[in-house]
């Protein structure tokens, strides 16, 4: 049995998939147990820890004060400053989480995931005033989101998105005063505040395609065997924020429809999970 799994992993999986079950006992649409805890890193402005099955991800947010880019004297906002971001996401997939990654340079996977998360975060539409350090916004808070994977057992995208979102909800920023140029002081008398991401959640779900079967929340083994991968992220208004299909075989529209439906079903669970932990 074990030898068969090692020598013909794909054949081994097919035997299970034919009966609509996976080797770990899940059905094709079952999602592994997802847990979340926030604020566990006290030296960070905001932090979270997410586990989906054996995949575990830590996210910490560091806040720094900086000056915003100057607007042209003509008053025309250039393209770059229009899309100016106050949040920067970095994903680290080190050798600790899997032997697939090396410590020397960031892997392709980490880089593309980082790009996707950076693009996603701009869709949160957090008002610029939330990042103001002083009242006028002469200096602003910049948030550096660092996501570290500790254990890589597939579906890192979902874990990262949930971690990023709940850590951002956990961020507390302090009001400050600028005495002289370049002299910033935190005003401890003012109350700390949070970012206004009240009703703007991301609901992610990833899938792996093996033959004609679509597996929700794939584990590492399944990701390796798959011929295609789908990631769908919805927001609160049931709009697609990120949809990605890549694979060596094409996919039919109906399959995508099914995946979108499954992602919608996950809506309430994620909402509850993030809300409960941040109350």
């Amino acid at each position: 049995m074990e030898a068969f799994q090692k020598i013909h992993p794909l054949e081994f999986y097919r035997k299970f998939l034919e009966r609509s079950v996976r080797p770990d006992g899940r059905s094709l649409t079952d999602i592994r147990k997802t847990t979340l805890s926030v604020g566990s890193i006290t030296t960070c402005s905001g932090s979270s820890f997410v586990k989906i099955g054996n995949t575990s991800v830590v996210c910490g947010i560091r806040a720094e004060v900086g000056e915003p880019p100057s607007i042209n004297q003509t008053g025309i906002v250039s393209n770059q400053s229009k899309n100016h971001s106050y949040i920067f996401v970095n994903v680290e997939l080190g050798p600790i989480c899997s032997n697939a990654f090396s410590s020397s340079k960031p892997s392709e996977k980490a880089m593309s995931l980082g790009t996707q998360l950076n693009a996603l975060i701009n869709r949160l539409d957090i008002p610029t005033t939330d990042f103001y350090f002083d009242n006028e916004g002469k200096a602003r808070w910049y948030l550096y989101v660092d996501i570290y994977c500790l254990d890589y057992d597939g579906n890192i995208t979902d874990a990262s998105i949930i971690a990023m979102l709940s850590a951002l909800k956990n961020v507390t920023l302090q009001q400050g005063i600028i005495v002289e140029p370049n002299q910033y002081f935190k005003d401890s008398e003012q109350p700390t505040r949070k970012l206004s991401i009240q009703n703007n959640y991301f609901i992610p779900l990833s899938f792996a395609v093996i033959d004609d079967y679509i597996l929700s929340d794939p584990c590492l083994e399944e990701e390796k065997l798959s011929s295609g991968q789908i990631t769908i992220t919805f927001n609160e208004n049931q709009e697609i924020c990120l949809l990605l299909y890549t694979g060596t075989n094409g996919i039919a529209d109906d399959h995508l429809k099914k995946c979108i439906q499954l992602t919608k079903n996950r809506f309430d669970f994620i909402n509850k999970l993030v809300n409960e932990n941040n109350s």
Partner: protein
Amino acid sequence: MSQIKRLDGRFDNQIRPIETEQGLLNKADGSAKFTQNKSSVLAAVYGPIEVKNPRKEKILKSVVEVTFTPGLGNSSYQDKEKELLIRNAVESVILTTLHPRTQITVVIQVYSDDGSIISCSINAVCLALLDAGIEMNGMIGSVTLSYQSIDNQDIFYFDPDLLEEIESKAVAIFAFGNNSNNIIMSKVEGKLTEDLYFLAIKNAREACDKIIAFMKLAVKNRIMGNEQQQQQQQDQKIKKEEQQQDEAMK
């Protein structure tokens, strides 16, 4: 649906005029340039060659490696993601199992980026692969759509330029093959409802068919010569024969 004029004078469902050139590089096994107005990309294909990094070697199929070089500056994280998307898209049309333990290297150099650069690159790579004579199970065409809603009207701009991409609510990139209806690659970024997404797929499929048809014509012209030239040559031939006949009659 009424047609909407865009800033550059195109209609909403109009793609920019395509210009292609194949075989411009002398060292590469295949190369192609794909230009759509100010978006211009050069792709080179080397392969199948021996695998440079033995760790990447695959026993049952060839490794496809894609390098994306931007027109300005060094390659960034965003470019790595583009590489990944392009690689996955073209890998699905290359018959990788034909040459196990080999590598197919694709190098993309951007001349200038004015939006829809991933689509441009995929199209360029497809032409370069054809030029290199790499076995494929079909052709691949790609198109980018950007979604805008103006006065509560949902509009898809086909093949958006950089400004349209920045100002859009969502950008959707699709790749389709010519031998099946399935989606080969799809990426949506922004905010798009489900219904609109499937409308976008429908639109993109039609646009991709047109692009693939163009690429077929480009390849045909390269191998058989331009049709107009052929026609002219034929006309000249007929004229010569007629002259000869006239002379013979005299």
